[in-house]
C-alpha cells in the first residue's frame, strides 16, 4: 500500500522535502514508518521513539496501523503561541 508522509519544521529541514509518497507493507504502523526514517536520516538515529504522530490530521498512538492512502505527519515538539 501507499501512504503520504508530510514533513514539517525540523523534519522538513532534515529530510530536505515537505512530502513523500512511500510504498509500505500492509500492517505497517506509524512506529514502523518512523524507524524507517531513522535508518535513512542520520540526524534522526538518536530518536528511538517517534514524536507525536498525526494520521489524516488527527493525533494517533505510535502503534496505529496505517491504511492505504493515509496522510502521515510526524509532529516535532510544537511551539505555537
Amino acid at each position, binding site marked *: 500500500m501507499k501512504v503520504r508522509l508530510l514533513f514539517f519544521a*525540523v523534519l522538513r529541514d532534515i529530510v530536505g522535502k515537505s512530502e513523500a509518497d512511500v510504498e509500505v507493507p500492509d500492517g505497517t504502523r506509524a512506529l514502523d514508518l518512523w524507524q524507517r526514517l531513522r535508518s535513512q536520516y542520520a540526524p534522526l538515529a538518536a530518536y528511538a521513539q517517534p514524536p507525536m504522530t498525526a494520521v489524516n*490530521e488527527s493525533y494517533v498512538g505510535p502503534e496505529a496501523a496505517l491504511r492505504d492512502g493515509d496522510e502521515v505527519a510526524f509532529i516535532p515538539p510544537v511551539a505555537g*503561541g
Partner: protein
Amino acid sequence: MSYLTDDTIDTAALVRRLLRRSDGALVVFEGVVRDHSEGKAVESIFYDAYRPMAEKEIGAILDNVRIEWPDVAVDCLHRLGHLVVGETSIAIVCVSPHRAQAFEACRAVIDRIKQTVPIWKKERTPDGEEWVGWQHQC
C-alpha cells in the same frame, strides 16, 4: 473560519466582532516575539504550521472552551511566517458578562494551544537558526 493568518493581527477587529452588549469583561492575550530565549539574543522568529490540522486543533480547543465556559465568547488568530521582535504572533480574545470566566477561558486557550496545535517556530539568533524544542526531545 480561519484561525491562521499570514498578515499582521488586528486584535481590535477581533474584539469588535466578538463583544456583545451583555459583556462586562474583555480579556485579550497577545503572544509577542521577544528579543531573547534561554540566554540567547533573538532577532526574529519564523512560524510554520501543518495548516489544515492546526485549524482543526484550534477549532476543537475553542469548542471545548465554549462548553466549559458557556458564558464566554472566544476567538483566536495565530500568525505564521517571519515575525520580528515586538510583533504579535497570537491574539486570543475572551468576553463574558463577568471577569472570572473570561480570565480563566483565555488562560485555558493559550495553555492548550501551546500543548497540541501543530505550529513550530524557528528562532534566528546571532549564532544561526534553530527549531525550538527539538534539541530537548532526546
